[in-house]
Structures are given as structure tokens and as C-alpha cells.
């Protein structure tokens, strides 16, 4: 094991330029994937912010008593899909309408605005079918006169969300594949540069595992270093966008760690596959 580590580290010292180019190639391919991830993350956050505005409004029958309203609030809050429910009195509704539509403030009259419940749903419970189901159940209460939730808007939002998730997954797979191919080629070049060493190891009776180990360590180290560089580049890009264009979200520390580890795993895998091709060649034809 100690020899394998020594050989792996010696490879960096013997060919520093090639090693650095390898790390940078891995870094830039992971950086491209990181930028895509950043865009996907921010689109998801934006859609989530819009989704947070999905709400059901249940208008109450005139003259519903305070006790009945309190009971209704308790019943609706107990629905598993509901995250939050509040009562809007006719006076509050009037004040809000006057504030939101100031130019029509003189035409509003508290008498025409009924009391209502504002119901918000939990994340993951906001697709059109689920919203409709909750609205239907709320509508069965005798104190509820009418239920509205902007069906068209919810359906459009859900379609956009589905499209974004599908496109994100598809592009993510493509970006990941491109990263794997580039990283694999980079590691393969490093292995090719040391083909003679592999050949001599085999010649003197080194086992396959022994031959592979230094290359696996080297590949994993390059992948990890590339991952760290990619994380720094992505963070820098995010800072520039946040400061000069608009506020954006960045990955959580665990997501960044996962990205760096993924770099290491890709390096390891690339080395494993590349070195395997050389393990059979011993007696090169002159």
C-alpha cells in the first residue's frame, strides 16, 4: 500500500504539467456540470417560490358564527395536505382589497365581501389533482359557500414544473456523461503515458491488483483535486452573478462535498477502466 501511494505521488512529481492538465480538465468538465446544477437549483427555487403561492380560498356562508369558524379552522388544519390555514374576516378582506386595488378603493364595501379561509398546502401536495381534492373536501362543510383555487393557473404551473424537472434530468444526464467521457479520456492519457511502467510491473510478476492500485490512487486524487477546483470555480461564478445580476442560491455544503467526492469516484472509475486495457500487454511486438 505504501509503495502504491509513493508511485501515485511520484507520478505527480515526474509529470507535473501533465498531472496539472489532467486535474484542470477534470475541473472544467465538473465546472460545466456545476454551472448546470446551479442553474437547475435556482430554477427549482424560483418555481418553489411560485408554488408557495398556490392557495385555496373557501368563502364562508354569511353569518357563520365565530365558534363554527374556529371549528372549521381546526378541521381543515387537520388535513394531511394542509400546511397552514387562516381566517380572513370581511373587514380584513376589505382593507386588503383597498390596499391592493387603490384606484377602486371607493367602490368596495365590507358588506359585499364575505369572510373566507386561506388554505396553503404542503410542498409536494400542490399538483392540480391534489389541490382539486382538497378543495372538494373543504366544499362539503356546510359553512362553506364557495371554493376557488385558480385551476388554470395551478395546471399551467404544474406543467412548467414537470417540464423543468424533465429537461433538468435529461440535461443533467447529458452533462454527467460528457464529464465522465472527458475524465475517462484524461485518465487514459495518463495511463498511456505510463504504459511502459505497467508493462514492466507485469513482466516482473506484479499482480493485477498491485498494478492497478497506484493508478487508482492517482485517478482518485486527480478527481478529488479537480472536484475542489470545480467547486471553487462554481462558487466564484455564483458570486459574480449574485453581485452583478441577481441574487442566486448556491449548493449546500453537503452538496458541494458530494460533488467533490463524485470527482474522486469518477477519477477512480476512469483509472480502473483505462488501466485494465493495459494489463494483458507484456510482450510488446518489436
Amino acid at each position, binding site marked *: 500500500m505504501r509503495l502504491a501511494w509513493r508511485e501515485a505521488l511520484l507520478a505527480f512529481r515526474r509529470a507535473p504539467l501533465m498531472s496539472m492538465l489532467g486535474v484542470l480538465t477534470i475541473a472544467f468538465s465538473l465546472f460545466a456540470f456545476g454551472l448546470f446544477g446551479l442553474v437547475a437549483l435556482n430554477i427549482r427555487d424560483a418555481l418553489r417560490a411560485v408554488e408557495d403561492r398556490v392557495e385555496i380560498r373557501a368563502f364562508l356562508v354569511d353569518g357563520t358564527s365565530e365558534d363554527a369558524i374556529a371549528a372549521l379552522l381546526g378541521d381543515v388544519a387537520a388535513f394531511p395536505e394542509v400546511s397552514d390555514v387562516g381566517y380572513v374576516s370581511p373587514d380584513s378582506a376589505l382593507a386588503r382589497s383597498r390596499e391592493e386595488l387603490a384606484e377602486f378603493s371607493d367602490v368596495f364595501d365590507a358588506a359585499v365581501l364575505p369572510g373566507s379561509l386561506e388554505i396553503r398546502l404542503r410542498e409536494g401536495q400542490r399538483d392540480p389533482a391534489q389541490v382539486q381534492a382538497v378543495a372538494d373536501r373543504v366544499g362539503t362543510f356546510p359553512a362553506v359557500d364557495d371554493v376557488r383555487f385558480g385551476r388554470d393557473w395551478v395546471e399551467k404551473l404544474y406543467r412548467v414544473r414537470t417540464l423543468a424537472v424533465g429537461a433538468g434530468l435529461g440535461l443533467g444526464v447529458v452533462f454527467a456523461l460528457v464529464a465522465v467521457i472527458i475524465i475517462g479520456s484524461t485518465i487514459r492519457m495518463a495511463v498511456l503515458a505510463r504504459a511502459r511502467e505497467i508493462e514492466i*510491473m507485469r513482466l*516482473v510478476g506484479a499482480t493485477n491488483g*498491485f498494478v492497478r492500485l497506484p493508478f487508482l490512487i492517482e485517478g482518485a486524487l486527480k478527481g478529488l483535486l479537480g472536484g475542489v477546483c470545480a467547486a471553487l470555480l462554481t462558487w466564484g461564478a455564483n458570486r459574480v452573478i449574485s453581485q452583478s445580476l441577481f441574487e442566486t442560491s448556491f449548493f449546500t455544503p453537503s452538496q458541494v462535498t458530494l460533488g467533490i467526492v463524485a470527482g474522486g469516484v469518477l477519477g477512480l472509475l476512469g483509472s480502473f477502466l483505462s488501466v485494465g486495457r493495459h494489463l494483458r500487454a507484456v510482450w510488446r511486438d518489436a
Partner: protein
Amino acid sequence: MAGVLRLDAVSKEYPRTGTALADVSFTVDKGEFVFLTGPSGSGKSTLLKLLSFAERPSRGEVKVSGFSSASLRDADIPQVRRRLGIVFQDFRLLPDRTVEANVAFALEVTGAPTASIGAKVARLLTQVGLASRGSDMPHELSGGEQQRVAIARALANDPFVLLADEPTGNLDERATRGIVQLLREINAQGTAVLMATHDLSLIMRSGYRYLELERGTLLYDGTDAHRLARHQ
């Protein structure tokens, strides 16, 4: 005497180029020195590939120091190679390591105890006449000296047999004499040597047994130097 190398009716065929060896049988005994000769394309390299288990025979059986091609698993091939020393025409040294490091490499990769490596490398370099050149880089050595390093590396794991594929092919006459003399000394200490060469005068001068291949078949197995004189 026990055969350290043995081929029983061995044939080797390649899908593209056809038959490389056809029905070849011979034995090399412990401590024997045998030459292998024949024109280019006669099957010498294929035979050496089979003996080092870089290739498997299409038919027949190859036996090396008790290991048989019929039953040897791929995972056990490194164990066979540790009983063989292999030397090539182009030396195959690691150009970015010193002479000592090149020889030590063979011991390190086979898991020799670290404490014993230094002393063994020094002994091997003394044996091949390069005791004072351990810290030199390969490019600082002559061709003959580089081949001596390759031989020291091949001897690192105390092989029963040394397979030498045209070891003097890149050397001048003086260096060739030195390498052959070194191989004789190694042979005298009990290591069998199978040396492939085009140099017929080398075989004739030695009086050793030789195997002559032509178009994949074993044309001659014996010590008659007069036959070779007629080829020249």
C-alpha cells in the same frame, strides 16, 4: 534432469495471421543454456510469449516450472513470471529512475521486504558488473550497460529460467560478448537460459544446444554447429 520449460505438441494460431507455431515440442532442463534461432516471422517471439504466459496455446501444453497452461488461472500468472527472468532487445528500463531504482522496482512490486531490498540490489549490480553505477540514470549508460541493468532486474526474484529475446540485437560486438559471458556466468550458477538470437556465429562458437524454428515449426533441436555453418 527435471525440465523447467516444456512444450508438448504446442500450436498457436491467430485469427488474422494464421498459424504462428505448429506442433512444437521440446524441453529445457534445469541449468541448461539453449539458443533459439530462426528467421524473422519463424515463431520465436510467439514461443517466448507462450513461455511467459502472455499468450495461451491454441493446442498442446506449455509447462513452466511445474505450472501448466492447461490448468493455470490468469490470476496465477504473476506467480509464474516471478520464476522467470525476462530480458528484451530494447532493455525496457524506466528512463526516469536510477539504475538502483530500476532493479529495486522488480523487488518492490513483488512485495519483497523493504529492509532486504537495498542489499539485494547492491549484490545484483555487483553480479552484472555495475556496482559503481547504481545512482546513474539509464541514459547515462551504454547499450551494453543498460542490458546488464535489465538482466539484474530479471534476476531480482531468483528465477529458475532466464528468457532472453534478442538481448544482443542492439549491441556492438564487444558489448555482445560481454552480455553472452554474463549470461553464461548466470547459467553456471544454476539458472537455465533460453536465448533467442539471429546471430548464428554466437551459437556456433558456444557449442550449446539450439532450437531452430522455421515458419512456425521446429526444424532442428541439437548441437550440430556444422548445420549453421551451411546457413551462413
